[in-house]
């Protein structure tokens, strides 16, 4: 990877830091109210209020606050959550694995499913099966992800009762080993499906579209003329080329999936970062919010970076070793 490209990552990282710092300060209400409850406004004397503001350095100029914020962050200090009464990083790291599990598996699942149905649908363009898939996903696209979540919840957890209603694992069950993993998987099913279903339409449409354009490419005709099997033409030649845009957009989709996870986690009370930030938002727990935003941003940037690296592997046209053959 070349230096300028790494530079863009650094720049976007710095912009994100500044935004994270500013955003909570632009929200209505003030942290003191959040910490001590609404009655504070009545009971707290202006002197006490000022004292507290001073102690939390909330009266210092903005640039000074930012500077302090940056230095602390460099020491791995993301602040202290008043609500959870614990260091921010500790709180976040407790929630993070669940989100990683949910977001990661949903990303993989939605990508794989979209690619496959996109290839098949594009190949059968205009036929009944294509139209069926297109219509289904368009309808699906009309529902917000939390709505899909609620429907799934009602259907499978409430009426059928075959899957757990909430949480990431059964509390105090004392399960271990394979049983514990199965329990986690059972809890994951509904949020995962809800989140994945919400992701599929846009990636499927992109995949189907690129498949249709790729099928018009001369090399597809070459492959057919060579007398190759249909599967080889569809997947090896057309499919692999049509996959490229989906891979490129994965980085962007990470952000979208994380946002989607926020709602899904709330509905399923899934103890991930989404639920955490929701609670933090209600409590105006700035340090937690900032920490969550920071971690999510870092992941999105990282994901983009990984995709960039990966892309050179799947598309030989992008990459550094071109110079070798240059004329």
């Amino acid at each position, binding site marked *: 990877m070349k230096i300028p490209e790494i530079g863009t990552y650094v720049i976007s990282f710095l912009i994100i830091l500044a935004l994270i710092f500013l955003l909570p300060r632009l929200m209505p209400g003030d942290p003191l109210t959040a910490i001590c409850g609404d009655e504070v406004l009545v009971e707290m004397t202006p002197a006490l209020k000022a004292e507290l503001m001073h102690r939390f350095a909330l009266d210092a100029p903005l640039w000074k606050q930012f500077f302090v914020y940056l230095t602390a962050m460099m020491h791995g200090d993301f602040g202290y959550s008043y609500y959870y009464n614990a260091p921010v990083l500790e709180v976040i790291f407790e929630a993070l694995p669940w989100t990683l599990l949910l977001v990661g598996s949903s990303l993989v699942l939605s990508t794989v499913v979209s690619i496959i149905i996109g290839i098949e649908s594009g190949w059968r363009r205009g036929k009944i099966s294509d139209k069926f898939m297109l219509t289904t996903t368009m309808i699906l696209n009309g529902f917000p992800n939390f709505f899909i979540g609620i429907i799934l919840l009602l259907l499978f957890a409430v009426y059928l009762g075959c899957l757990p209603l909430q949480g990431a694992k059964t509390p105090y069950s004392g399960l271990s080993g394979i049983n514990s993993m199965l329990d986690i998987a059972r809890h994951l099913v509904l949020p995962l499906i809800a989140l994945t279903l919400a992701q599929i339409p846009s990636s499927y449409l992109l995949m189907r579209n690129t498949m249709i354009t790729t099928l018009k490419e*001369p*090399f597809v005709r*070459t492959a057919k*003329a*060579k007398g190759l099997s249909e599967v*080889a033409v569809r997947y090896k030649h057309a499919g*692999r080329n049509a996959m490229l845009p989906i891979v490129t957009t994965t980085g962007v989709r990470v952000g979208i999936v994380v946002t989607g996870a926020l709602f899904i986690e709330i509905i399923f009370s899934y103890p991930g970062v989404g639920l955490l930030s929701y609670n933090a938002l209600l409590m105006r727990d700035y340090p937690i919010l900032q920490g969550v935003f920071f971690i999510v941003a870092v992941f999105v940037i990282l994901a983009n970076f990984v995709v960039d690296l990966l892309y050179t592997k799947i*598309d030989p*046209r992008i990459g550094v070793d*071109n110079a070798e053959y240059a004329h």
Partner: protein
Amino acid sequence: MIELKDLEVRYGKRKVLQGINLTLKRGESLSIVGESGGGKTTLGLSIIGLVEGTVKGEILFDGKNLVALAEKELKAIRWNRIAMVFQNVENALNPLYTVLDQVSEPIVAHKLGDRKEATKRAGELLSMVDLPEGRFYAYPHQLSGGEKQRVLIAMALANDPDLIILDEPTTALDALTKVEIINLMHTVCNERELTILLLTHDFYAASTLSDKMAVLYAGRIVEFGPTPALLSNPRHPYTRGLLRCYPSMTTTKDLQGIKGRMEFFDDGCPFHPRCTQSLEKCREGAPRLEEYDGRLIACHRGGIIPLLELRDLSKSFDSLNAVDSIDITLYEGETLALVGESGSGKTTTAKLIMGIFEATEGRICLEGKQIHGRDKSFYQRVQMIFQNPMEAVSHRFSVREAVREPLDIQKQCDREQRESIVRHILEEVELPSSEAFMNKYPHQLSQGEAQRVSIARALVLNPKLLIADEPTSALDASTQAKVVKLLLNLQEERGIGMFFITHNLALARKISDRIAVMLRGHIVEEGPSNEIIRNPLHPYTKDLLKAAPTLNSNVPLVPKHTSKKKEGFGCPYANRCDKALEVCFNEKPQLRHFGSHRVACVHA
């Protein structure tokens, strides 16, 4: 080996190919030429079973009808028996796999070897097409256009096919690469005794790679015959048009286009809207491919018609034979340059055609019919322009009157229509059609303008034959260039046959399809312009060529009278010819055929 019977391909309601009948024997090579969009690629793809439209008719390959074959059987034939070299367009090769992979792929897919053997064989093929070994593992984007084309050729040979379809294999390549690729294909196809079907609009590739040629226009074959014959003497107007558009070192005439653009017709000759000799019947039924002297032509008029034929035409003034039994044919839409020194009888010939002189002997035929008397309808079809426009246009006529006069004489249309015709024709010869200009008199015009007025006057009746007697020799060079271009454009648009009289061989070369060299009433040499220029056979023509203007500042060798012998009944050039023999003085040499030439010389 392969036979197409009544092949028809439709995309929806549009017939892209129809009535295609072709047979190709093992080891033969056939090129299909035509403009893009004419159905060449569709034809290739229909043979390999990949055309997306509906296919009717039969494609017999070794007796099996490919059209009716199941997909599975077709797959077994593809690449094993029939392979295709695609045009190296943007992505004929898959951008994600190395070229070695792609060449070996069909070997593995058709189970002709395992992966290892296939890779070895693919490597051999790539070496055979001269791809450097270092490039075997390159991806297509890392190769140059020529290298990609080589890979495509190697790929087509992977499964040792019998029939190879070459689809525009040279189009995107630069000149030297093109020659290399053509050579490569030539060697490879000869070595392996492949049957070739070449689809191209490149006549160069077609001339080197094929024995037979079929010209495809708007989904129909319009001309079919041996490649050299088609190239040197195209008989269908479309073939001629294509050749006129193709810049090559063999043609000397300026490039001309084909008017209009391609459209598909179910009824009528597909070429009729662009054809300059089309009749009412051309619009109705589609012409069938019929044989005319060793050639198949689909044309209601039997190919390009002879517009003017002079047969044994003679004119003598007392004892002087001004024109001595000349024999010339001018085809529709072509220019015949009659070249020779002053006093050779050129103008007399023109006057004979126009009926100013009465021929002593012989006959003149216009569109196949002998001319007896010349009435108004004759002058509607034949018009003349003269050397000195100032004298040719009556100085008492304004521009409007001069141009309108032929219409007045022919009593065509009413006054208003005549006026609009005059304006239109003035614009066509690139003159202003303003009131002020039309009221001008010849002496108020420049030389160039005056000649345009006289051209406008000649063309106002829409003649088929234009006799131009030194129409540009009185003009300065820049005006001459403009007038010549105008005449060529008018020829392209209207298909005018031009009988162009000039003493300037350099000019004749740029404007004519055929040149006839005239000397003292005789045609001494006649043939296609490029042949006459490249390979003159008569000493007189050679001398004329030496005397033709060049810009290389060498003092030309002027032919001298080499003999003091009395001029007799012999060759008209005998006493100036340095090779003259005794026989040249006594016996008149006959015009004899040499290839596409006719020469009257004992030495030829």
